[in-house]
């Protein structure tokens, strides 16, 4: 009887995991289909949708726009987020809880509210349609992931190591650069990866701020899904799944390295 209950429980969990994982994968065979319209299983193999994706300016321009604005947003988020994480974990100041709430709020605030709020003011300054508006807005949405991951990494740093470096004559900056920074580097990279994925994937910001001159890949896919479904979007989706998987694998490796570092006793 207990084994039956166990089998039912494990079977149920397996079904739910299949529900979570399999739908993501159906787009991969569709992207290699020879058919113009959706048909499954695909009648034949073809690379035409990938050719389309890489040869049409509408797709390549949007991809470049997404890539460079997301990279710029990530750099901005790291440059602002790493010092902020140090300030928040090491410093004490009035209103710290409020500051933390402000920094984390973009994750939980409804996307539409943030998007129209930025649009309301950015439009007044002629920022709509300018890539720099996307960079700034995506950085604000991505920075919580840097702060969260770096704060977690800082929590695992043995402060006696910094103290030792200071006692041995290092300047505070030297102690940070030579002791603390190497220890939190995996946290910084993991935060940067999550920040990049968030910035790269952001649609609502692009819907209101991209205009017609700063169209990103999510915005382009959105237009396709709303008006005509051409299997090129299956190719774009498959490429995005591959990119996500690679980036996530990288983040996971970094997380394990950080965990190992934390558990090995300091020398």
């Amino acid at each position: 009887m207990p084994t039956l209950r166990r089998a039912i429980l494990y079977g149920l969990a397996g079904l739910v995991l299949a529900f979570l994982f399999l739908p993501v994968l159906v787009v991969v065979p569709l992207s290699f289909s020879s058919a113009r319209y959706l048909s499954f299983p695909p009648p034949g193999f073809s690379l035409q949708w990938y050719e389309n994706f890489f040869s049409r300016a509408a797709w390549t321009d949007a991809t470049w726009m997404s890539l460079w604005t997301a990279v710029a947003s990530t750099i901005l988020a790291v440059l602002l987020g790493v010092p902020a994480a140090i300030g928040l974990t090491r410093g004490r100041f009035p209103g710290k809880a409020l500051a933390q709430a402000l920094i984390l709020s973009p994750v939980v605030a409804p996307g539409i509210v943030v998007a129209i709020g930025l649009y309301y003011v950015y439009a007044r300054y002629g920022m709509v349609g300018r890539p720099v508006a996307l960079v700034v807005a995506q950085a604000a949405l991505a920075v919580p992931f840097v702060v969260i991951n770096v704060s977690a990494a800082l929590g695992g740093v043995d402060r006696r190591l910094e103290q030792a470096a200071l006692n041995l004559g290092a300047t505070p900056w030297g102690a940070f650069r030579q002791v603390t920074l190497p220890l939190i580097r995996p946290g910084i990279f993991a935060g940067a990866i999550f920040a990049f994925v968030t910035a790269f994937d952001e649609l609502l910001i692009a819907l209101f701020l991209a205009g017609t001159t700063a169209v990103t890949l999510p915005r382009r896919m959105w237009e396709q899904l709303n008006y005509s479904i051409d299997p090129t979007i299956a190719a774009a989706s498959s490429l995005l799944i591959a990119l996500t998987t690679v980036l996530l694998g990288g983040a996971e490796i970094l997380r394990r390295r950080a965990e190992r570092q934390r558990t090995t006793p300091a020398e």
Partner: protein
Amino acid sequence: MSVALSGAMPAAGRRSRPWRLPPSLLALPLLAFLLIFYAYPLASMLLRSVYDQGWTFSGFGALAGDAVFWRVLGTTAQVAFVVTLACLLLGYPVAYVMSRVRSGTANLLMVLVLIPFWTSILVRTYAWMALLGRRGIVNNALIAMGVVDQPLQLMNTRFAVYLAMVHVLLPFMILPLYAVLRGLDWRLVQAAEGLGAGPLGAFRQVVLPLSLPGIAAGCVLVFTLALGFYITPVLVGSGSDVMLSMLIGDLVNRLDWPRASAMAVVLLAMVLGVFALLARLVPLGRVLQGGR
């Protein structure tokens, strides 16, 4: 080191420590950035709901008498509630099993959760469109198996909205549940069983109460995210599945800022209200670490 600061901190400014600023100053650039480019625009838009060359409540007044608004508010709350309940019922067994298997297996299962989690919402919604369309994968399979002769209307239904939203939001339930269940002291369950409780009794009286913080965190995350959902309901829903965020977007496109900003206030107040409840139960940072 500025004069004002060195006056306040006499120990600072020694020559061997060239810059000894309080570390809290390091948070200033980010806070300034967020205040200028994020908080200020958001606040002025929200303020627009009560201020337009003078204080006014006409935006909220218009909402109060707007039947469409109330209907959409009802739909939004209902969808968010159903999706949260479904996520809890589907997510709990997964988190439970993940916390009971060996850590290698648990890591593998975690990958199955995290890859869809980090895959673009557009990609996942497109996948559901491909599955549920008139000539989609599900309909083709049903016709091929002879279950139906005519394709079923699956897309642009409330059912499709539920399915796709549960798919997107399920990881937000599984991750906090797993975090709590993994840290649970399972010897308590053995003790309960040793004292004569059946497996279901031990679950109900030991596991379930101890996992309540995870349940609360997961439900609040899923519910608040569902309240503000936009992309999925637009693409797979029908005209009767309009959510609050869709109505807001529409109003902005028509430049009806009084109503749009008032509705944004309502939506944000609902989200913050539910979150304020959660903040009393669980530290937020822990819930969000590594997750979106």
